[in-house]
């Protein structure tokens, strides 16, 4: 759907047209999902943010001026809500590295190295990482150290270890896709 179509639907929705509003919300949901997917990989968390975005669009409807283009207004809300969510996550430390790995990467109970192809893919993925990222992942996942212990060993702070591990896992997922 083009920007003009969405804008027309939104203007009709703001006049009380339920059908247009429903069409609009259905049309913007995949846009929201696609936007959030760049920042959040966990599908459940992503869907939570999409729901927050839809509610925010509803709450902020009255601020849209018909003389403005629609998509910049919409994407400003996408960005605001997504960053707001990420700030809450980092502030509350809800997402520990262990939770993230459990929710997002491989099931660590499976013996993934049985399959030679998978083994080669994993080796390739690991070789794409820089030395620090590789060492952090090995210490965390293979040798079972906690983030605090890894931070001590590598003379880094704990949040830097977590961010590095998070980025390493993102890289591995991209390679393994």
């Amino acid at each position, binding site marked *: 759907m083009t920007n003009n179509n969405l804008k027309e639907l939104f203007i009709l929705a703001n006049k*009380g047209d339920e059908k247009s*509003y429903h069409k609009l919300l259905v049309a913007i949901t995949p846009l929201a999902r696609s936007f959030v997917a760049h920042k959040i990989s966990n599908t459940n968390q992503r869907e939570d943010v999409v729901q927050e975005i839809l509610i925010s669009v509803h709450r902020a409807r009255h601020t849209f001026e018909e003389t403005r283009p629609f998509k*910049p207004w919409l994407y400003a809300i996408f960005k605001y809500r997504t960053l707001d969510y990420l700030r809450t996550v980092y502030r509350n430390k809800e997402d520990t590295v262990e939770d993230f790995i459990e929710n997002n990467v491989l099931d660590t109970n499976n013996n993934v190295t049985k399959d030679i192809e998978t083994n080669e893919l994993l080796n390739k993925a690991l070789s794409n990482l820089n030395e620090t990222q590789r060492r952090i992942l090995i210490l965390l996942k293979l040798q079972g150290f906690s983030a605090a212990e890894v931070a001590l060993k590598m003379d880094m702070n704990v949040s830097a270890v977590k961010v590095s591990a998070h980025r390493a896992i993102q890289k591995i997922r991209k390679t393994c896709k």
Partner: protein
Amino acid sequence: MTNKAKTEAIIEKLSAKAHDITPAFPIKRAFLGLMLFSILYIGFMLHFAFGIRIDVFEKLELTPFIVELATTVLLIATTLALATYYASPRENFKKYQILLTAALFTFVCALVCNTATPTLNFNLVEILHNTHCFALFILFASPTTVLGFLILKKGATTNPEWLGFTILLLSASMAYLGVRITCAGETIDHQAITHLMPVILYTIMGYFIGKKILSW
């Protein structure tokens, strides 16, 4: 219920509330009204309560003073425009917009420092005890601040921190003008500590207050 099913349920609920829309608040008109109110309020206070400095007409013959006041007015106009623009969902504040406001205020500081009388006996304690200008500043800035935030709460900004910074810079600039017209203190220590420093501190406070009050 799966998470996607929850999203669909939310879409159904929101669609049913299509008619339930807050009336659009005329932010531009509200801000113009706020400016008019602030000017009248400060004018009233100056005329009936605190008086204008006795040397104001002499000062108005000096170009640096006129340029200082004109730059402050330009700063007020800039912050007003930014506050109006960013009151609804927009892209992030541009760096040049923040730098422009900082540059205008820095220029005012430079003008003041250039034209102020040097201090013979600097006494910080004595300056801080002279709370008259601090009190004036708060008195002049507060109504604009409170009303400004009330107006902005009607919008839905996606830049709460920088908008808080902007609205407090707007209030502080108006208060600075008022204090400058009533206070005849021209020494550099008095100007820096009781006129300029409150503007800086007030504005920085705005960044944190904006984060708390304008987030939604």
